[in-house]
């Protein structure tokens, strides 16, 4: 999957007939690579790392959503973790009433959409700067709501979420949680990858690259931005739903401003605007703090995160994916040159 996406130059339509002929084969390759990677944790890892991998799946949905908003549309949200929190707390409330999968998901989607509409409609008809600042306030608002509804949400102490049970699968078992999370993560990835080929996806790129020009060719700028925000909020809500089901415990610090900033760091480091980048980001945001904790230096994680965000944003605009793409091109150029010589 990686190489297939890496090889496709961004913003180039390419040769239409060639694309069509290669299409099914390329898709098959990607699905196969995805399946192989997805099979690794249950086969090779112990319970603990399967649990971490399940969390990577949940966070991948969140980073994919943030990538739709930031990487594709160029809008900055500082409340993406808070939208995960909206999903997680909705899950908690609905599941404590005894409802199962379908109602939980429907409630998460509806509540995320409503919260996103309240934030996005007034701000996104204005500049992206407004969105960034209002989302900053939204994170404070969620923390306030949770703090002041201790009876309902468990307040600052947090709350235990009932495990999700689907047929034989019980999300309190790491392996089951991993299998449950795999389905929404795969769907979210497929949708995000497909988005780039739709008209909406192209409108988003146009808005990101230059709003003025996009507007002048008839792109409804505000509507595109709001749509992107709604998509990203639903992604975050679903991610929060999975996160609550997998970890079985939620508390306000999981969804505060710093959590949102870490998600942002993840997307920028992985490579904004690409599906692979979002996955790398999800792996970063789950595994790196864990590695620092295992190394006995948990305080280093925020320091490294902050430094990486500033440095990568300034010097490596396309993140790890960009570095990989550059290396691939260089390698191919060397190979082509050698073939030309012989």
């Amino acid at each position, binding site marked *: 999957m990686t190489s297939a996406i890496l090889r496709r130059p961004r913003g180039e339509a390419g040769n239409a007939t060639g694309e069509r002929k290669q299409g099914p084969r390329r898709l098959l390759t990607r699905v196969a690579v995805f399946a192989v990677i997805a099979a690794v944790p249950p086969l090779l890892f112990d319970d603990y790392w399967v649990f971490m991998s399940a969390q990577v799946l949940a966070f991948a949905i969140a980073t994919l959503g943030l990538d739709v908003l930031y990487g594709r549309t*160029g809008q*900055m949200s*500082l409340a993406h973790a808070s939208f995960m929190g909206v999903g997680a707390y909705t899950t908690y409330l609905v599941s404590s009433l005894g409802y199962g999968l379908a109602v939980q998901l429907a409630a998460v989607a509806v509540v995320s959409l409503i919260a996103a509409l*309240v*934030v996005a*409609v*007034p*701000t996104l*008809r*204005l*500049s*992206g*700067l*407004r969105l*960034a*600042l*209002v989302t*900053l*306030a*939204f994170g*404070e*608002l969620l923390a*306030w*709501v949770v*703090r*002041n509804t201790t009876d309902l949400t468990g307040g600052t102490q947090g709350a235990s979420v009932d495990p999700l049970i689907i047929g034989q699968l019980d999300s309190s078992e790491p392996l089951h949680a991993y299998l449950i999370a795999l389905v929404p993560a795969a769907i979210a990835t497929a949708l995000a990858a497909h988005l780039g080929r739709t008209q909406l996806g192209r409108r988003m790129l146009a808005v990101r690259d*230059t709003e*003025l020009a996009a507007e002048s060719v008839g792109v409804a700028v505000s509507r595109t931005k709001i749509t992107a925000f709604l998509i990203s909020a639903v992604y975050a809500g679903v991610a929060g739903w999975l996160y609550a089901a997998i970890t079985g415990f939620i508390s306000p610090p999981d969804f505060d*401003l*710093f959590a949102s*900033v870490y998600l*942002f*760091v993840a997307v*920028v480091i992985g490579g904004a605007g690409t599906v692979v980048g979002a996955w790398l980001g999800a792996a970063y945001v789950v595994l790196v703090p864990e590695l620092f904790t295992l190394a006995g230096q948990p*305080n280093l994680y*925020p*320091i490294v*995160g*902050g*430094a*990486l*965000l*500033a*440095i990568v*944003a*300034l010097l490596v*605009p396309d993140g790890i994916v960009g570095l990989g793409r550059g290396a691939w091109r260089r390698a191919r150029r060397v190979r082509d040159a050698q073939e030309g010589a012989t």
Partner: protein
Amino acid sequence: MGDLGQILVGGVTTGSLYALFLLGVLIVFQVSKSINFAYGQVGMIAAFSAWFLYSEQGLPVPVALVVGVLLAVAVNSAIDYVAIRRIPAGRPGLDLVVTLGIFLLITAVMQQLIDANAHTFVPLGADTRTEVAGVVVSVNDGVVVGLTAVVIAAAYLLLNRTSLGTSLRASAEDAGIAQAAGVNVRALRTATWAVAGALGAIVAVLVASRLSVDAFYMTPFLIKAFVAGMIGGLDRFWLPLSVAVALGVYESLAVFWLGASAGTPAVFLLIIVVLALVPKRFVNERNEVRA
């Protein structure tokens, strides 16, 4: 009436702090066209390291405060020099991303260097109170309102009545043309970041003296100052500053009428309603390509 008067005094004082802080945001935005998310944390550096120096290292309080403010000036100038200036043209919005990283970095480093707990700060007159017309006023309140009024008036005069102000406004309008006309744009730019650093540091010290100091206390404050800037417009002068003072009063009234925890949702509601209702041309920045 006494109660309401007390609320108004509290509101105007908090609002003055928002305004003074916002002034630092405005001058940086107007000259550099950048937003600094780490600005609150720059102020935090001043207050937190001052606390550390006088309380843990035994330095005299005035010395500790001066060192703190100088540190903030150095850090804020460095943010521009090392990061903001290197943002390539054609990447609008990157200032937010980069300063977000710096925000996280400063918070984590200060937490690592000092600690993650809240500490009481020197009261700076907050405990010396007198009663004026039935309303209790502290020396600190007087200092805050007086300082804000003086600094804002001085900034207005500097910008509009001196040749330095003309150069500043020229570089804000068009850096290229100003440079060609012999204005040292780079030096002016560094100067605005340094002055903003000092303003942020002074506000953060005053806020700390009224509440307490830790690595996070400036973030809610930063959000509210930004909210005022957004409502009033970052490329204006009097309007955003007045909105900042009004926001302080509004917040105090919400707390007074609806209870101690009503401040945060009241401010959020205000920003959503204002941005939804006010005509677009009034609240938007000039529609230019920031590239």
